[in-house]
């Protein structure tokens, strides 16, 4: 049986402690009160500070539906900071250019290859948008030409907590205007049989970015799929 990701990262973290900044090691010590904390990666080239209420809504759902001990404060860590190597889960999003600096590229690669989990969301929800084109190019340069692949819609991530038959449809995809905005798949980079980079062109961050008081107007809580992503990241 494979080692759960959190343990894996904790072990990996000890190995990396030598090269990690003190702040990073300290962060893990502090976070041991929690099973999960939400890390947003900031990066130099683009607009990473998007969908600012999305983490709060996701954390709220984790508390509502699971027994995870959750730190309710989002942590923003630069991708270039080795402290990110300790995070059990990272989120990265934007509309604009993705072009990693050397330090960012090194950390991203190291984190992914050592059992980390990054959820990357294209805020343009557009396969021809700047974010999509440049992020995909960045992944090819780090992990090889065919590293990013569509995952099947019966992948374990779709049944990690709630059951879905593929990525749930977003409100934007209801338009049906054929403007290339409907994505009935997610892509991923698989490392050791598990998703290490989950990549969405669906703009899920925007879908989950709203005043929490407005959740009651939804027919169904649309953040349920976020619970699956986190649970998969923590247990796969």
């Amino acid at each position: 049986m494979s080692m759960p990701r959190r343990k894996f990262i904790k072990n990996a973290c000890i190995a990396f402690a030598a090269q990690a900044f003190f702040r990073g090691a300290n962060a893990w010590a502090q976070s041991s009160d929690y099973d999960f904390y939400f890390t947003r990666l900031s990066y130099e080239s683009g607009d990473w500070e998007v969908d600012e209420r999305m983490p709060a809504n996701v954390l709220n759902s984790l508390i509502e539906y699971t027994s995870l001990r959750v730190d309710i404060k989002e942590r923003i860590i630069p991708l270039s900071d080795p402290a990110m190597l300790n995070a059990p889960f990272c989120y990265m999003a934007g509309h604009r250019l993705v072009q990693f600096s050397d330090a960012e590229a090194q950390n991203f690669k190291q984190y992914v290859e050592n059992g980390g989990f990054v959820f990357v969301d294209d805020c343009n929800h557009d396969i021809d948008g700047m974010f999509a084109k440049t992020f995909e190019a960045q992944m090819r340069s780090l992990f090889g030409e065919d590293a990013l692949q569509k995952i099947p819609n019966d992948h374990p991530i779709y049944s990690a907590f709630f059951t879905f038959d593929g990525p749930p449809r977003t409100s934007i995809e209801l338009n049906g205007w054929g403007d290339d905005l409907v994505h009935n798949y997610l892509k991923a980079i698989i490392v050791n049989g598990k998703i290490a980079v989950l990549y969405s062109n669906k703009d899920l961050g925007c879908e989950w970015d709203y005043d929490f008081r407005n959740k009651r107007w939804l027919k169904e809580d649309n953040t349920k799929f976020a619970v699956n992503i986190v649970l998969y990241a923590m247990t796969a």
Partner: protein
Amino acid sequence: MTIITEQHAKKLLSKVLTFSKADECECNLESKVGGNIRYARNTVSTSGQESDLILIVQSTFGKRTGTATINEFDDASLEKVVRRSEELAKLAPENEEFMPVFGKQKYAKANTYFESTADVTPEDRAQAAFDSIEPSKKNKLIAAGFLEDAVEMSAIMNSKGLFAYNTATQVDFSVTIRTEDGKGSGWASGDYSDVKLLDTAKLSSIAIQKSKGSADAKEMEPGKYTVILEPAASVGLIQNMMRAFDQRSADEGRSFLSNKVAKGSKGENAPKNKLGQKMFDERVHIHSDPQHAIAPSAPFAGNGYPLNKIDWIKDGTIKNMPNSPYWAKHTKSDYIPANRNFIMDGGDQSLEDMLKNTRRGVLVTRLWYIRGLDPQTLLYTGLTRDGTFYIENGKIKYPIKNFRFNESPIIMLNNIEALGEPQRIEGCMIPPMKIRDFTFSSLSDAV
């Protein structure tokens, strides 16, 4: 042709009823007399006059109803249309939800008729078009517009003694003014009961300003923005919401006002709709008022039932929902006819005041091509058009490319930052609104 007077209508409809052999008979007389002028490429292209009179006869035997219409008014024709409606009634299946027609009713005084509008001449229309075309030409822009004025008459009489008569005047004007290269576009509209309030030069100057200001639009990323919606931008979403207010749709679980009972809970006695529930920001107050000075409407519905002032939403709470006479009886509630003119209260801020207080946002002139996506959450999609601008630190900075939006008026009316002074638009009174987190889902290449 002139508008039929109340006396004339009464005489004509009484005669129609004398031909009836049905258990119940109800007739509607509808007339419209008006004129219009259309211009494009800074030139008047059509000028028209229209007059129409139609008689609608509805006959009922037991629970079978038939309807026939005619626009000939000699005695033989009147008898012919009554017979035709009776023949159709006999062929019709029984209506299990049949409700009898209403008896005699009392109506409030109407203030829907303005002599000034009834007296509009072709010369007046030509002048109104000139006042729009001339400044457009001077600014090297291209105007296209349409002006229509009309006097409408509506009379109802039935075999139970009901008689209602009303005349209403209406003038509608809209103009699109574009730059010669077609890259900039501005739009303005005005609709009034009293033509004296219409100033096509003033409205055109707004469209001119927007046209010049909207060329060379910059692209902005889709996402959630604070928006200032001019009344023409929010009216479509509000009207769609009010059209979805029907009690029966809610009671039968088909609308955003259906009261969903949690799965597994014992909900047999739970209310079926959201009447009395707070659903919106407490500043939201939407009502109808046939006597409204600027946006009046006839004091009776199409079935002759009186229309009076009524709250639909007060302090953000659902106060009343329209229904049909059958559904009112079925649910043991009062019959509440729908009303098409909505008055939404606002504040006293002007559009300029709202702009001044905006750090970062988008000014939307209007939304168009609005289509429903989900009746349960009232999610709509559509496009901005004819003047979309980026606001920074209280000033319009530059024009931006049009967006497609995905938004629900429920969410919109929970995200109110400020409301301005209501203006008449499409027969309603709607304030400009400053709304946070308005969802723009993608960019549009349309001008």
